[in-house]
């Protein structure tokens, strides 16, 4: 089959690789009908996520049709049309039973690596996202092996198009969870979203759905800001304005009640702090560049929530912890517990509250994916979200 393969830092390619097979009786094989490139895949392209190996198949946002199931699979049947959460959960451990699916105790076979880095505990596995997260082959391919097939895949029974439900696998629940984590008081709270990429777009619209009085989106790419403005958000271009002053003015000096950092570890930013971050990342002294996080802590109102859907990798310094303490901020963060959001969000799509396909700017075949990885990374051509058809 054809698959997108990580060939090293700044190099992804289309390769012909063996078709996946069932490795355990609880596995299923899905024929991928639509898959997407995620902003967090760019961290892999840039080589800032450790433990990638040449030849790894990428991709964690995908959906398709079940073509084979293992003998212990009970709920899923051949022919089912499914969306598959980007994180892999066993469904049996204590975190899974509490709905904390991304914190699954059991689904990461390479728990050693994550334990060594992250204080003796490992989160669950992820599709196509480094060996630290399990080393599972991803879904930017014609077929994919789906472990724990009775736990992850969610059957789509309505006639919604792929493009309307595909993002239930990651960016929609990720943006939604970021907004939900804020504990928005409807009609009262103002929410700022740093980063108008796909997750930022969904976070902003989710904050609106949850009743935010105003949503302010901060980015530097005009097409992305326009997309947020089209949804009724107030926008700030941080290259044209002083973000902290603009946010104070927009909120009568209070600051946003909650701030969502939908940027994560590769913030562009500017100023001396951003230069130091970039230098340290290049020298492998640090995984993360944290301009967005700094702005989030400095801008957030007293008693507010800083919600982090953006991915962070390692140790960070020059965090304005004094500001966070002085204002009594709450931090909420972590990988999305995708499984628990799919059903409720699918209902919202079916009810016509939101059509997630608004975020798509580019559609392509697998063969065009390597070029589109670069287009997406460089934010050229108004690129916000790329959807791939593995059979085109």
């Amino acid at each position, binding site marked *: *089959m054809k*698959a997108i*393969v*990580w*060939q090293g830092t700044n190099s992804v390619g289309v*390769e*012909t*690789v*063996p*078709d*996946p*097979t069932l*490795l*355990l*009786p*609880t596995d299923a094989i899905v024929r991928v009908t639509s898959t997407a490139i995620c902003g967090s895949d760019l961290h892999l392209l840039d080589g800032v996520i450790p433990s990638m*190996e*040449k*030849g*790894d*198949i990428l991709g964690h946002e995908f959906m398709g049709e079940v073509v084979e199931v293992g003998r212990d699979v009970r709920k899923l049947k051949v022919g089912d049309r499914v969306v598959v959460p980007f994180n*892999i959960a*066993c469904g*049996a*451990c*204590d975190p899974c*039973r509490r709905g904390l699916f991304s914190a699954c*105790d*059991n*689904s*990461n*076979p*390479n*728990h*050693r690596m994550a*334990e060594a880095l992250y204080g003796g505990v490992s989160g669950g*596995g992820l599709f196509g996202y480094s060996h630290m997260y*399990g*080393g*599972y*082959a991803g879904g930017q391919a014609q077929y994919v*092996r789906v*472990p*724990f097939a009775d736990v992850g895949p969610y059957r789509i029974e309505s006639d919604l198009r792929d493009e309307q439900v595909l993002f239930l696998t990651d960016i929609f629940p990720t943006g939604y969870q970021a907004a939900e984590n804020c504990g928005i008081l409807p009609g009262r709270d103002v929410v700022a979203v740093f980063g108008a990429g796909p997750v930022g777009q969904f976070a902003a619209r989710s904050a609106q759905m949850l009743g935010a009085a105003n949503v302010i989106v901060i980015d530097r790419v005009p097409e992305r800001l326009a997309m947020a403005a089209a949804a009724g958000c107030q926008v700030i271009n941080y290259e044209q304005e002083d973000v902290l002053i603009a946010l104070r003015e927009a909120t009568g000096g209070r600051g946003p009640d909650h701030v969502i950092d939908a940027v994560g570890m590769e913030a562009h930013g500017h100023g001396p702090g951003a230069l130091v971050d970039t230098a340290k990342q290049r020298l492998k002294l640090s995984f993360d560049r944290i301009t967005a996080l700094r702005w989030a802590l400095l801008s957030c109102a007293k008693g507010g929530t800083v919600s982090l859907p953006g991915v962070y990798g390692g140790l960070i310094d020059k965090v304005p912890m004094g500001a966070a303490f002085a204002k009594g901020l709450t931090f909420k963060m972590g990988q999305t517990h995708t499984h628990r959001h799919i059903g409720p969000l699918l209902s919202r799509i079916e009810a016509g509250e939101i059509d997630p396909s608004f975020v798509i700017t580019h559609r392509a075949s697998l063969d065009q994916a390597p070029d589109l990885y670069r287009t997406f990374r460089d934010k050229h051509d108004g690129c916000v979200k790329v959807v791939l058809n593995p059979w085109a």
Partner: protein
Amino acid sequence: MSEDRPIPNPNDPAALPEADLTETGTAHLPTLERSVMGSVGVALMGAGLRSARPFQKLVLGGVGAGLTAMAATGRNPIAAALKIRQTGHGEVLVRDAVTVGKPADVLYGVWRNLTGLPRLMTHLQSVEVLDDTQSRWTVQAPTGTVSWDAQITADEPGHRLAWASLPGAAIENHGEVVFRTAPGDRGTEVVVRLAYRPPGGTLGAVTARLFGEEPAQQLRDDLMRFKREQELGFAPTTEGQSSGRATHGGQA
């Protein structure tokens, strides 16, 4: 160095003392190791001082000074850095814990069936039950297989199991596994503490660690395997999945 601990009478289980598994800090160097290190350290420092090359002077002098300091203080900073911990009797102590979503008596039962343990602990080749309390353990070591006899020193069904190797064991060891009901409905906390005398003292332990024989990591892996076996009935895997490596003649 077994004079640190009374030698138990193998014919009388009651004579086996409750093993001490209290942690006292990082490894102390035995006297023999200290004197060897001290001599080598002083010799290296001398060679360093005599050397005409500045780089050699620095390296030899530095290593020599380090060894001498280790000998003088009786502490092995390399062992400390590698987190090699120790009991009051100078044994290496390994401890870890995992919470498993099953009742304590079930988990105790799995553990008490000693002949089944090699399925959980991959470095164990076999456990042969000799009688009610005695068993023969065989592990795969880099130098071949190593066997010893062990005795159960405490057996509290559903709560605790303790063991000690019998005199003459190639690797003297003792330990316990405790099953504690976790708060809430989370199942059972399984706590393992085991102590052993590595062949070659702390230097042996450091060498083994550097060559990838890590009892602490083995214990961690065993506990996670135990948890997954109990909660899922299998271990998740990516072995044998497709990748771009297979197309280049590498492993799939």
